[in-house]
């Protein structure tokens, strides 16, 4: 046990050293400090959201509270009228209200949580798919590489927002998933893989055989679409779930390509050859020898994509196909404000707070991530790193 621990410590030592070096570099760059401060600020807001803005309905904290349903926005500092909301401790609208009397302050604070949720979940899903497909394509090359790359070409042939838009409206509200069929497909896949092992097929061909079997099953199932389902669960999808799924589906090919490139870079290194020579399995070579050396920078870059993803999600909300009405979400709050840009000749800026405040939230959030990303791009670039 003790030996194991020491081995583990020695193993992660280089990673830690690199991390320390990176942190040192960050401290020296003023823009990245600004970025770090902004991101830390938003993390704090997200964590302390229940303290900063106690929900009026604890079971449903993401829905912004209504103070009646009056159509005209009210300025910052207006008193709360609704007796129920007064009873929950809110006496004043700190930053005013948008149309429909949704509180701007509450929406912005809880909107931070929404933004993080969207960013983190989408990056996590897209990165996972990207890692799987990217390592397959990069390590095995050949047919599977060609197939995957052509597929990413096609997805990347669409501007992200447009494809996400189409997917959001295409995803059904309840998604029937046939568990029995899914189980059957997985079972057949493994049977075929073991069959491949038994027939002494080489690594990639086992996999291809499995894939072939899987394709046969799926196609025959689709062909006979009318056959009675085996065991169906209905997966309920909220509008936000749809946005998450759509963005992840649009986002993964980008990661696949980057990870594939990184793997191609390290694939022919001596230590990989050595690992293969001593008889490590493909799985072990990929997970223990290639990935740790290839994904360090990719993972960081991907996580810094959170800003861009939040921007796209906000755009979807703005267009009216994102979060449902009344959900704490920055993009939607701005779309509410659209009708109030022009208040009249005497006082055109009367409703400035409706469009300025949520906008500042999105803008600084994305700016923080981009500053951090920009600094990291310079720091992690191996050709510039040690200068």
């Amino acid at each position: 046990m003790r030996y194991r621990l020491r081995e583990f410590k020695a193993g992660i030592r280089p990673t830690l050293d690199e991390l320390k070096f990176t942190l040192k570099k960050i401290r020296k760059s003023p823009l990245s400090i600004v970025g770090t401060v902004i991101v830390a600020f938003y993390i704090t807001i997200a964590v302390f959201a229940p303290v900063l803005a106690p929900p009026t309905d604890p079971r449903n904290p993401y829905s912004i509270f209504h103070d009646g349903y009056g159509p005209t926005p009210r300025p910052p500092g207006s008193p709360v009228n609704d007796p129920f909301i007064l009873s929950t401790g809110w006496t004043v609208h700190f930053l005013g209200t948008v149309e429909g009397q949704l509180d701007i302050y509450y929406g912005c604070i809880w909107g931070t949580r929404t933004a993080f949720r969207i960013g983190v979940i989408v990056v996590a899903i897209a990165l996972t798919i990207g890692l799987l497909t990217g390592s397959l394509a990069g390590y095995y090359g050949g047919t599977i590489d060609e197939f995957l790359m052509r597929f990413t070409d096609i997805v990347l042939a669409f501007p992200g927002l447009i494809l996400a838009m189409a997917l959001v409206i295409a995803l059904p509200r309840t998604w029937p998933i046939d568990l029995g069929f899914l189980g059957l497909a997985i079972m057949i896949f493994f049977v075929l893989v073991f069959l491949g092992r038994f027939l002494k097929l080489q690594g990639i061909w086992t996999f291809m055989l499995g894939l072939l079997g899987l394709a046969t099953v799926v196609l025959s199932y689709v062909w006979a679409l009318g056959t009675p389902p085996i065991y169906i669960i209905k997966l309920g999808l909220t509008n936000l779930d749809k946005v998450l799924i759509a963005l992840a589906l649009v986002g993964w090919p980008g990661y696949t390509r980057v990870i594939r490139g990184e793997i191609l870079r390290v694939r022919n290194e001596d230590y990989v050859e050595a690992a293969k020579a001593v008889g490590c399995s493909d799985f072990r070579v990929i997970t223990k020898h290639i990935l740790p050396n290839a994904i360090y920078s990719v993972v960081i870059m991907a996580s810094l994509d959170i800003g861009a993803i939040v921007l796209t999600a906000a755009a979807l909300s703005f267009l009216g196909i994102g979060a449902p009405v009344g959900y704490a979400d920055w993009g939607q709050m701005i779309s509410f404000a659209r009708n109030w840009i022009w208040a009249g000749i005497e006082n055109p800026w009367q409703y400035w707070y409706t469009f300025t405040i949520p906008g500042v939230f999105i803008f600084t959030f994305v700016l923080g991530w981009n500053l951090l990303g920009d600094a990291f791009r310079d720091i992690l670039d191996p050709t510039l790193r040690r200068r």
Partner: protein
Amino acid sequence: MQFIIRRTLLIIPTLLGVILLVFAVTQMFTPEQRATLYITSERQMRNVDEVIRQYHLRDPIFVQFAGWMTQLLQGNLGYSRTGGGPVLQVLLRKIPATFELVILSIPITILLGIYLGVKSAVNRDKAVDHVTRTVSIIGWSLPTFWLGIMLIAIFFSGLGWFPPERMGTATFNYIYLSGNWHHYTGLLTIDGLLNGQPWITLDALRHLVLPTATLVTVQIALIVRVMRSSMLEALGKGYITAARAKGLSKTEVINKHARRNALIPTLTLSGLLIAGLITGVVITETVFNIDGVGRWAAVAAGGGGNVPDIPAVLGFALMTGCVYVIANLAVDILYAYVDPRIRLG
């Protein structure tokens, strides 16, 4: 020439893939929703079951694909409820407004981006560099829709200089009510001149200022960043030192030797720029209330009531996919023209 032919042939599988992907999206809908893709008249709308049977919408996927492809090749993309006509017709009717906006934004973004990138690289780590980089990263972080709203608030609501929408009342009256207007190209700026009404051109340009500014601000960072880094790389090369050593002036070295070589990577990026602009156009047209394909797609997807206008969104997605693939082809051919290593290699 051989390169161009080879590269052109290569887009066929990609275009086919684009079509397949859009078809895959149609398969996520229920047969009733899918039927809207084939409906072209009010009469059919009232008898959806008939349409489903006629086009085999409950049949296996291959049969459906064949049917869908047949429709597609005949130019039938379905009937758009929000556009009030068959999708293809609506697309053709609305595209000039979008085209005008994009075609104006592309040269401004590229030229200004190159200029700023070079300026920034030549003055590395000086005030100009820091300001350019900061401004471009701010532009990159600005949500397009918010920037548009703020520009309207400042330059229209506040100062009254540049109005939103596509045309003013006088232009509208002249075009639609006077009866003297001929649609030559559909582009207001050019049609104004062709009709002998230069004030319409001026009015159209005045309306284009804010949307163009929005698109350029958001997209320019892409060009500036790459131009800066490739310029820095070019400036570090041996031939620059050689050129300086033989006594050429600094501006000559930068303009003739460094910039020319640094332009090549920036050119590849123009493909990405077009994708960004298409995305930007959807939002910009919505914010500025310009009646182009972008706003139509946005309305079709979410704004037009509870039920999305499926044929419109898919038709638009198909169009953008094809436009983007063809734009990339153009960029690649241009690239080969500029860089002989690619053409001959």
